[in-house]
């Protein structure tokens, strides 16, 4: 790529980033990995829409912004702990404010034996050696531009390990709160999560804002689910209306491992969510269900990529999108059944609802099969509310807005019926209903 005459403000603001002290700075291996990633990111810049993966999401406006390198006051912003609570979730909690761990808001006492839960910043300062292998691998993995940026600048995050055979009895609450700072800040969080063989874990990831701000947050989660382990992961994304959130999650599943993920995307002005799953062991199962509900000029781009790499693996994905006003939704669901992954079963359904003539949703399911005896189904639709159903409801006395809300909620409902935590399921439904036009 030829150098542009005027520096891109986003990149220009990173010029001093290499000399910023982060947790773990001074560790030679970490310094080298961070430097390599920063250099690679700055050389290539932000991806543009010519890249297939960014076809529908233009980053030009983001490139024109100059973010502060973190928020120096992140450790001391007053945050009402009540705002962080979720009904039905009262176990261990790790809270990050503008990307920085907050011991004062977290709950880490009396952890179950076999459960290790710490902030990355603390691990890097106190005992980084056990993480060296994993981080080095993650930081050198081919990722996109934001994965590089995150690797270069992430100083905090979640380090979570469940020992083999341990069933964690309470959901772990990971809370990422955004709060106004002196300037538009960029924060970067890296999570490293591992479930040992036959371990079980219930994870709730919650993004929220204590007040409006325009920060950029990037979050990369590397999750390993070893043989026979089971993960339930619920994600409630309720970030600030004008914030930008780039989330990249990867899940590796061993033999007979299971992971189920439920996603509700509500907040943010620009949200990019990449979700990669690799079913590496025979009999691994992966399920994702998600919905985004957009309004205003929100732009949410979800990229789901699932690779079946072993025998008799199964994946099921059910995603719904609702866009109102001038919102824009993007969904790409790519499933690859690799050579040798015989007997795999993959299904993907993506249905979308446009509530306004100016809203837009682009959906693209992709299926590549290189194995034998594979069951695969996929479908995607974009449509409007059923006028006949709408009239039926109104003819019984329901006001137009209420009838539309009821039908829209019904459209989304299938997504969360499989969420096992009933209280959390109700909360997701309520959050969804509250967001629907009425």
């Amino acid at each position, binding site marked *: 790529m030829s150098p542009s005459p005027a520096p891109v403000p986003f990149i220009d603001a990173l010029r001093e980033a290499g000399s910023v002290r982060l947790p773990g700075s001074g560790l030679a291996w970490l310094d080298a990995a961070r430097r390599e990633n920063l250099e690679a990111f700055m050389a290539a810049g932000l991806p543009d829409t010519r890249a297939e993966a960014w076809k529908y999401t233009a980053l030009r406006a983001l490139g024109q912004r100059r973010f502060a390198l973190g928020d120096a006051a992140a450790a001391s912003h007053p945050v009402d702990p009540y705002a962080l609570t979720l009904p039905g979730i009262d176990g261990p909690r790790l809270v990050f404010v503008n990307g920085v761990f907050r011991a004062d808001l977290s709950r880490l006492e009396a952890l179950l034996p076999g459960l290790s839960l710490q902030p990355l910043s603390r691990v890097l300062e106190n005992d980084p050696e056990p993480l060296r292998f994993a981080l080095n691998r993650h930081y050198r993995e081919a990722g996109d531009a934001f994965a590089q940026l995150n690797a270069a600048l992430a100083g905090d995050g979640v380090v979570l390990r469940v020992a083999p055979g341990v069933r964690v009895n309470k959901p772990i609450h990971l809370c990422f709160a955004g709060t106004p700072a002196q300037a538009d800040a960029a924060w970067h969080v890296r999570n490293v999560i591992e479930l040992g063989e036959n371990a079980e874990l219930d994870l709730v990831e919650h993004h929220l804002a204590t007040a409006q701000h325009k920060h950029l947050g990037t979050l990369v989660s590397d999750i390993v689910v070893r043989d026979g382990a089971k993960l339930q992961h619920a994600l409630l994304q309720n970030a600030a209306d004008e914030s930008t959130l780039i989330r990249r999650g990867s899940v590796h599943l061993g033999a007979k491992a299971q992971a189920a993920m439920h996603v509700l995307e509500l907040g943010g002005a620009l949200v990019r969510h990449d979700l990669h799953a690799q079913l590496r062991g025979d009999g691994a199962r992966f399920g994702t269900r998600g919905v985004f509900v957009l309004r205003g000029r929100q732009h949410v781009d979800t990229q789901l990529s699932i690779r079946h790499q072993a025998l008799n693996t199964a994946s099921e994905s059910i995603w719904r999108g609702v866009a109102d006003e001038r919102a824009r939704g993007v969904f790409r669901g790519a499933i690859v059944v690799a050579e040798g992954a015989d007997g795999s079963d993959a299904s993907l359904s993506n249905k979308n609802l446009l509530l306004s003539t100016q809203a837009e949703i682009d959906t693209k399911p992709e299926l590549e099969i290189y194995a034998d005896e594979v069951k695969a189904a996929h479908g995607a639709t974009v449509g409007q509310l059923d006028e006949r159903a709408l*009239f039926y*409801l109104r*003819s019984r006395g*329901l006001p137009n807005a209420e*009838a539309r809300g009821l*039908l829209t909620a019904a459209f989304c409902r299938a997504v969360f019926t499989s969420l096992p935590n009933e209280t959390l399921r109700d909360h997701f439904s309520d959050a969804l209903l509250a967001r629907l036009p009425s």
Partner: protein
Amino acid sequence: MLKIENLHARVEGKDILKGLTLSVNPGEVHAIMGPNGAGKSTLGNVLSGREGYEVTAGSVTFQGRDLLALEPEDRAAAGVFLAFQYPVEIPGVNNTYFLRAALNAQRKQRGEAELDSMQFLKLVREKLKIMQISDELLHRAVNEGFSGGEKKRNEIFQMAVLEPKLAILDETDSGLDIDALKQVAQGVNALRSPDRAFLVITHYQRLLDYIEPDFVHVLADGRIVESGDKTLALKLEEHGYAWVNDRDPALAHGARA
């Protein structure tokens, strides 16, 4: 109660109602009969406010109000109920939840107190005596997977709960076997009262054996061409719709049997 004067209505650019005039008083049951294409369903749809029906002339007043100026939900709150010829399946919307939301929306619009779930349940139990539908159907999504008969019974059950002042039955008999027809008719008869009027739209006289009308009107080519008492329905049954056309040569070429 209901006064329709010289009503003209158009669907997709085609004139369907061409000067329909009808007066309905509280407590009366009026049957509207007519051949296919006469405008029977259009009448029900125009009265309930379905989109796509353009009224080009005439007026409809309901209890002194201009019915045509009201949104469908406001017509419902004013007391107009349409039992659909083809009740719509609505996956994901619970039947009971929907009915309570509808009733409370109407009550709110009328300035009445909303019913809590206990009060509503009590009302449902009471109305199930009028139109029996199974608990299982109550808890399913609206009309989803219901048989034809179950759908029609659900319509009458909704009517029982919502207690309209004017009930329009749009070919409620269509697709029903004789047992289902009797059940539906019993439900309707149980809801007859001095302050409630019915407009029973039907192609066949059969339904009127069970729901006895006070007046029978014959609709042909968008107009009422003949009115009488219940014996008119029997004459139609005997002679067919061609008989009406024969009596009004001006219409003979326009109506279909």
